[in-house]
């Protein structure tokens, strides 16, 4: 059985946003019969990557079933709009990364589902790799040594 084709497009082809800015994106489902789509969920969320267990929180969430859609067709192009929060900012650290994305998940018969996500940046790129202003002191444990 073929997987549906999910497409997500940021308005203006942006991939970076500032806190409080309006995120707008369009999403659409193709390559599937209208009757096959049982529900569709669109979320704007952040999640962590790295050494620790994954944390995730949803900033925006909408779930639609055929009855919510025009002509009960969930495949049609739909625009998602939400003002982004002040935090957490996107972050690339050493044992922790924070990623933002728009995720669209479609629910199919027999409990199957498929999803696609498009990452974006919230805030000015922030990384842990700020240069240490002085050489790390000898008393610092090896696990705490600043690496550049």
């Amino acid at each position, binding site marked *: 059985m073929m997987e549906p084709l999910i497409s997500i497009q940021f308005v203006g082809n942006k991939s970076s946003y500032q806190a409080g800015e309006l995120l707008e994106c369009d999403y659409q489902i193709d390559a599937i019969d209208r009757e096959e789509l049982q529900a569709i969920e669109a979320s704007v969320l952040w999640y962590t990557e790295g050494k*620790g*267990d994954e944390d995730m929180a949803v900033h925006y969430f909408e779930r639609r079933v055929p009855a919510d859609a025009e002509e009960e067709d969930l495949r049609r192009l739909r625009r998602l709009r939400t003002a982004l929060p002040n*935090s*957490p900012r996107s972050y690339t650290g050493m044992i922790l990364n924070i990623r933002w994305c728009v995720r669209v998940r479609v629910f199919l018969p027999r409990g199957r589902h498929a999803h696609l996500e498009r990452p974006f940046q919230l805030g000015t790129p922030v990384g842990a790799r*700020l240069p240490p202003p002085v050489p790390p002191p000898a008393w610092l444990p090896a696990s705490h040594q600043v690496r550049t």
Partner: protein
Amino acid sequence: MARRFRPWQKKRGDRRTGSHLLGSVGEAFFFAALFVTGAVSLAQVILARVLQSQTGPVPSGWALWLVLLVLVSLIVIGAGGVIYAALHVGASAERRAALARKATDLQLLQPASPSSKDFPTVPRDTNLTNSPGITLAYRLPIARSPALELLGVALFGLLWNGVVCALAVVALNAHLAGQPDWSLTALLLVFSLVGMAAIGYFFRLLMVATGIGPTSVEISDHPLYPGGQYKVFLTQSGRLAMRSLELWLACDEEATYRQGTDMRNETRRVFLERIFQQTDFEIGPGRPFEHLCELEFPRGAMHSFQSGHNTVAWKLIVRGEAARWPPYERTFPVIVYPDPPTWTSA
């Protein structure tokens, strides 16, 4: 075929390979089995008690209450597990997270907590700003009270050495009886070393806590912002010949993860900057060392962050070395907010 019927699956934290639907169904069956076992057994016990069955022994007195407690626990755990699994079948991670967020937002309606709503995942600074300073606006609390650490080490030392003493009595009796247990004696030697190390560490902590006076850090404003300029007032009391006293700004990433059945923590220091250092000076009784210094918080730095398993924590660290004393380190957490230009109110 191999993908569909994979006998082993990988699991790390809440993430796992394989079908979530099958996992939830298996979970539901497990809890349903607990529920059925509890319900059937409970019915059997009650019937046997009511009918005074002669077919087998019927518990009475405290044993009856114990059996009832276990069976009712099975029923409650089983029913709760089935309901939990049923609620999670077909619900995506995003939907569950959205429901959790709604619940959190409802809780936030009662106490006014603008920082939690306006700055999700940034820890609140209430506990850091409720103590006014003498020279500057806020006196920062110390991260870890030495009294708690002392108490913990003292309890461990007492328990450990209590066990060592009990083992020593047994071993000594065996030796006196002419039937020495050499494996126990060897174990006792190893245990004694650990016990002595615990006592030594306790006295070291006690010396640092009582001999080196309190350290205080005050700050001109809080929370901090990247690029902001602040004043920091450092005070060190005691009667000490200091070799060095340093104030550092540090940022740690902290991660918690499950490995098998263990919870593990890992910390990585990602930023370290010395704000102040003074070497070779005396601190006299009634004349605490005081120093006012400037802190320019680095631009472009990450804000404080706290989620279930991951943290970005900023802190001021005071480190001192005094003659005849072991080096000591005292940590004062601070909260850093994101860059201000584009804030919005939730």
